[in-house]
Structure formats: C-alpha cells, structure tokens
C-alpha cells in the first residue's frame, strides 16, 4: 500500500496514471471543487490553511487505519492551500485497488476523516 501526500499552493496537477500492478481492477478519483455559493453568499473562492506537518501525520495515521479495513494498492492525496478560485479543485484523491469496494469505501471514509480530524481550514473570501 503506497501513499503519496502532497500540499500545493499552485493549481492541482493530476498525477500521471501508471498502473503499478496488473492486479489493479479499480481506479477511483475524487476532485473537490470550490463552489460559488458558500452559506448563500457568492464568493470568488476559498482560502485554505493547514498545520502541514500535523496534517501529514494525521493523514498517514488515517490511511494506515483505513487501509487495514480496505486494502488498497496506492493512494494519491493532494490538497491545495491558500487561495483557490471557484471552479478549481481544492482536493484530489486517487485510490487504486484490486476490487471496487475497497476504493469506494476508502474514498468515502477518508473524506469523512479528513473533514473531522485533519488540521486544514477554509476561509471564504467575500468580494
């Protein structure tokens, strides 16, 4: 189970897809995109900040925990920080696994855990 965790201040570049194994049957990709309406107000984008080293440690721990339940081949986790304009991705996750169930369960639980326990914050910037 290989994991790649990255924080970037530039637009997210989706990593090239190369299957590391001929036993991968599922590739699931999630992009979280900044929406124009935040609590009913039109915004130009969101600003993200993080406690980066702690966020990385927490993510590694969460991936180990979830990976024990949902065996995956590889995960790419990329979170953009600072200002992200509406329509651009703040988050990209790719999970590959033998069977689809592991990727699907992993994705749902990983995002839930991200939103509960990983020290990253968004602030809406109103015009």
């Amino acid at each position, binding site marked *: 189970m290989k994991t790649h965790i990255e924080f970037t201040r530039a637009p997210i570049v989706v990593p090239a897809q190369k299957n590391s194994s001929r036993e991968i049957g599922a590739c699931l990709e999630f992009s979280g995109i900044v929406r124009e309406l935040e609590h009913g107000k039109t915004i130009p984008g969101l600003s993200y*900040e993080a406690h980066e080293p*702690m966020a990385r*440690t927490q993510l590694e721990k969460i991936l180990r925990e979830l990976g024990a339940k949902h065996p995956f081949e590889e995960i790419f986790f990329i979170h953009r920080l600072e200002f992200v304009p509406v329509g651009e991705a*703040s*988050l990209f996750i790719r999970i590959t696994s033998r069977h689809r169930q592991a990727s699907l369960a992993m994705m749902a639980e990983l995002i839930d855990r991200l*939103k509960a326990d990983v*020290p*990253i*914050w968004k602030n809406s910037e109103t015009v």
Partner: protein
Amino acid sequence: MKINVLTFAQTRTQLGFGEKVFDCEPNETPREIFRRLAPEFDPGKTIRVAVNQEYADWDQPVGEAFELALIPPVSGG
C-alpha cells in the same frame, strides 16, 4: 523550557499571533499554559489542542513537548 505555540483560523484571530515561543514547565497542562498566555481565551468544547502534532488532552501535562497547537474545528476538502 521553551515551547512553540501555533494557532490557526479563528484561534489566530482570537490570540493575535500565528506562532510564538513561550516558556513553560513540563508539569504544566495545555489548559494552564493557555490560561497564562491568553487569559481571555476559552477553548470551549470545540477547540482541540495538539501536543507535538498529535491530538492531546487539555488537562495532561505537556512533558518535554516542543510544540503546542490550537486546532479549531477543521474544514478541509
């Protein structure tokens, strides 16, 4: 001993700094340290504290910690 104190999001606004080095004792708890350095600040039930980048107990002595961070409710993604 010296401890590096970090704040984020609304706690940075509340405390007025993002990162600062303070003096403290190993037997002090995070609650005691923050009561001393920011008497007005109340973590309530939603703000967590991290000691050395792990979630920690507000009432557990910090020991030989190098870092103390205030973690208001997170909102990544």
